């Protein structure tokens, strides 16, 4: 099993609903976030392109954050989901430094936190909160090993890219372009 997400940049409008939904679902303190939205503008008026992307932890297959964690708090579980065990985490921040995507933050309670792919929901058969709320329906989640999952189907039919492939982390968030 390999969980992954595909996000359609042709549909995302940058509304930030994924961010608020994550916040209320996972009790992320206000002022911090596990996911965020990026806007890139290219060209000059009127020859323009805008790409809007919802970003989060890439649940990298080759994850520097897990490798560098001195306590083993950062670890990989079923479906390749990268998690942080809050109790074990000493808040040293090595993982924050090592992540090429700036996906982690220091929680005010003294540990490091980040996206969990909403594993608590996924285990109940639900989509992650961000996926389930997105008004443009532009996010697809599922198991890459299952060719019938939403995410497999999208990747089979559309062009896509990943962020910072040169970092060699083998990220598992795919952007449909």
């Amino acid at each position: 099993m390999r969980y992954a997400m595909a996000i359609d940049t042709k549909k995302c409008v940058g509304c930030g609903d994924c961010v608020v939904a994550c916040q209320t679902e996972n009790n992320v303190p206000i002022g911090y976030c596990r996911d965020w939205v990026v806007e890139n503008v290219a060209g000059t008026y009127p020859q323009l392109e805008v790409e809007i992307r919802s970003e989060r932890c890439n649940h990298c297959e080759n994850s520097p954050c897990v490798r560098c964690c001195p306590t083993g708090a950062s670890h990989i579980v079923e479906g390749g989901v990268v998690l942080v065990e809050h109790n074990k985490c000493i808040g040293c921040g090595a993982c924050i430094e090592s992540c090429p995507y700036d996906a982690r933050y220091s929680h005010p309670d003294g540990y490091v936190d980040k996206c969990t792919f909403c594993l608590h929901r996924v285990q109940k058969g639900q989509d992650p909160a961000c996926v389930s709320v997105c008004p443009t329906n532009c996010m697809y989640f599922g198991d890459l090993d299952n060719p019938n999952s939403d995410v497999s189907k999208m990747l089979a039919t559309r062009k896509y890219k990943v962020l910072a492939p040169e970092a060699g982390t083998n990220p598992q968030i795919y952007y449909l372009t």
Partner: protein
Amino acid sequence: MKTRRDFIKISAVGTGAVTLGLSTVKLAKASEPGSIFGKKAKNQVAYERFPTYCEVCFWKCAGWTYKDEDGKILKIVGNEEDPHCNGRLCPRGTGGIGMYYDEDRLKKPLIRVGEPGNQSFREASWDEALDLVAKNLNKIKKEHGPECVALFSHGTGGKMLSHLIKAFGSPNITAPSFAQCRGPREVAFAATFGEEVLSPERTDIRDTKCLVLIGSHIGENMHNGQIQEMSEAIDNGATIITVDPRFSTAASHSKFWLPIKPATDIALLMAWIHVIINEELYDKEYIDKYAYGLDQLKTHVKNMTPEWAFGITTIEPDTIRETAREMAAASPAVIVHPGRHVTWYGDDTQRSRAIAILNALLGSWGRRGGFFNPEAVHLPKYPSPAYPKPQKSWKDAFPGQYNLVHEVLTTGICDATIPNPDLGCHLKSWIVYGTNLLASLPDQKKTLEAIENLEFMVVIDTMPMDITGYADVILPECTYLERYDGIRSSPHREPNIALRMPAAEPKYDSRPNYWIAKELGKRLGLEEYFKWNTFEEKLDWQLKKVGSSLEEMKILGVKKMPREYNDLYSLNGEDYEFNTNTGKIELYSTELANEGFDPLPKYTPHPEPPQGFYRLNYGRAPMHTFSRTANNANLTALKKENSVWVNPRVAKLWDLKNGQYVWLKNQDGVVSSFPIKVRVTERIRWDSVYMVHGFGHKEKRLSRAYGKGASDSELVTHVMTDPIMGGTGMRGNFVTFILNDPKKEVAS
């Protein structure tokens, strides 16, 4: 100028321990939580989730409020059965809990005390505050007549206050949603098709093949159902054509973006009509059967060629032709979107008419992928006596004008409030429910002049918005998560109803609108209009009449009902009589002709920005609604201030840097109260600037919103009034930059 009313920043609650102590005693008596919640309060805990429909904007998406075992509200999630949201709330709806938890909320009734020049608010009990309101309203009724009281209302709860004011005897009930927003399109579509567009819009975006957006920035305006359907249309490969001087988010998702010169849209629309008629691309059968006035239209647009429009709009003739052909190829599954906030230049009804005519030529009205025919569940009114017949109304201030207007104009109420020797009646008292008039109406000076002339003003709100500082009495309402409200029954493909019930007791000393209305009713001698004992009783009575019940709705949240008529798409050759003078779709409007207006739309040039000034365009951000969410912690976390978008060429000229703060000054010398951040971006034309509406709050008690960003409303001092329907055109204002703090400069 000596003022009757000081603007009181509520943070300066001038009380003193005495009044506080007193009100505590009274409150214990007046609060009687049981009288609001009945015995149900306890049972509610048994539910894990509570049905509601969102009140953060007018889309009113239905959802569920979730609570944990400790009774703490955790999150709000969309109801999957709801056609407004299909289980997905927008960021504002998801962040709606921020409204409930906002520690800056209005907490207790407040009463203005002291002499002009030295006034403050003191806390009061509900009894005292309501008695005072009733006393003043009764006095005005006796001295001037009940018609001299006006209600400004926005949102669901306004209905109960509206019922109260009608029972009281006044017809002057108004909302900014008409003259500051969608009025022109409703009047124009009614003139053309005999019917309004309504809300939610009857646009069949889901099944369209071509969607044309004229300045409508779906995706930045977060009208949930529309955005979801636009996404579906993108999936289905629909063509999107966006006309906007700004590279909006919608433009970035479009096949065609037409970067039009601002204020020239009518020229483009007429050129499209020209191409469609000239190349005989219109739906001939449909037009033959249903429309009136094709010949007049043909003659009218004869010279309105794409070449003519190019000189005005800066859009290439080839692009105009190509996009017109795209639309025709998709016909009838094409939507030239009527927009929503369309009060721009004062000829907005005519622009909306051009849009309506274009849709008619493409045969999209009443067709799949165009405009569907919505149906709503008809909820009977709870029994109550007939309303008294008013003797006078705001319209007396406008003899012979606005005959096509069937709603009350907010700005008309302002005019009818400012004393005028030629006027029989002028208004003496306002009740303002849930709308921050200083942000929702243009021309603040006029609004303030009207307020200055009032004998008495009550504001009912959940938050200390700027308008509350001018009230004589402030009544704190609880948020939508803490109250029942009327059943939502809205026109849609499938008729449906939705329930809002409280998920928690009202925080602080706040109360729901229906309780306030009933309590005021009692004090105004209007008990018989509020015969229900509890609001549940009223809702249950109504629900049972349409085959449901309160019990059932508590479980379902949303209930869909079968359509009574099988006419979702009714104009595929069926006979049909339109509600117009000719019984046809009026390409040529006999109604407008009769009233002395142009029966066919014409392009008229609008003023251009003077040297060194830029047209002020404003719009929405998806995470905020008007000015009302600016203090919501969950949403300010996404966006805490607005910025002014400036083209890099302009930035170079002024030496502006990204992130720098500037003040804006308009053509009338009005300077923004607060500085605004510059965003240098290619996404905006060089002749205009853009900012998101709803920021720059002056009320200090809004701890997160105070002084954040600038207010566009403040800078909209020039209003171009639509002679047909009184809409306030707000896009004829021009601003320039002030680089150093203007207040400091005055001081030195």
